[in-house]
């Protein structure tokens, strides 16, 4: 008795929302949640088969559960490389013309170990994760930095 009343209410809501055209994810998700709830009820009142087919038809092609999470866009090797180069160009002790992908900080660009520490700190700030000391001492070219960040962030090659 209560199930029949509930089924009636659900059916009317679903019919009203079916008149709206697709496009809004909210109604789609609402319909999807409705579909999941009244799928259970349809088992109970399968005697009214004719009326349920309408709902099944609606729900058939367009059951898409949409959930939106907040996250940064996924990193690619290109984007990591661009960002690393951008940060390095902003550093005032580096000559932007001489900067290549494989230019060594100490040998080619004439920087110091203190400068290298500062550069790695700037990279940490840029990408938002910490680089431990032991690893940070070994990163001497931009290519190595890109490789390390790609390793840490699981970016496909």
């Amino acid at each position: 008795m209560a199930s029949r009343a509930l089924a009636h209410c659900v059916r009317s809501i679903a019919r009203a929302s079916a008149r709206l055209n697709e496009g809004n994810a909210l109604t789609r998700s609402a319909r999807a949640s409705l579909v999941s709830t009244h799928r259970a009820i349809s088992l109970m009142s399968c005697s009214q088969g004719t009326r349920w087919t309408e709902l099944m038809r609606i729900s058939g092609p367009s059951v898409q559960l949409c959930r939106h999470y907040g996250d940064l866009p996924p990193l690619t090797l290109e984007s990591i490389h661009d960002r690393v180069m951008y940060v390095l160009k902003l550093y005032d002790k580096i000559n932007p013309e001489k900067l290549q992908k494989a230019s060594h900080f100490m040998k080619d660009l004439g920087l110091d170990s203190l400068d290298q520490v500062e550069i790695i700190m700037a990279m940490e700030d840029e990408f938002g994760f910490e680089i431990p000391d032991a690893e940070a001492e070994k990163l001497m070219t931009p290519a190595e930095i890109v490789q390390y960040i790609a390793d840490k962030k699981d970016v496909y090659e």
Partner: protein
Amino acid sequence: MSRSDVLSLYRRVLRIARSWQSQSALPQDTDTERKYIVQEARTLFRQNLKITDPESVKRYIEECDARIEIGLHYRNPYPKPSYLPPMGLATQKGRKLRAQERLRKQAKPLYLQSHDET
């Protein structure tokens, strides 16, 4: 006591500067103090770059440690000022000047070693 120790000390100072909050909690004070910490670390580390004998290196490392600890404890990155030693003001004549200089050098605290007061 080695190169990597000094570098990790530098990194530690920079990391402290990244997350520093001033005691007054005003944003412009926090900003000023962060910039001060970075700038001070840079100048002092560069100034003492060429020193090679192990005693001085050890003393400068201890100085850096002392300044970090004092700064974190008092929430104040500026060096703590200290008094002149007693009988520390003399004239420009020879003997007393030398005694004064010796006395001042002895009385200078550890965390002010890199600073050069007249």
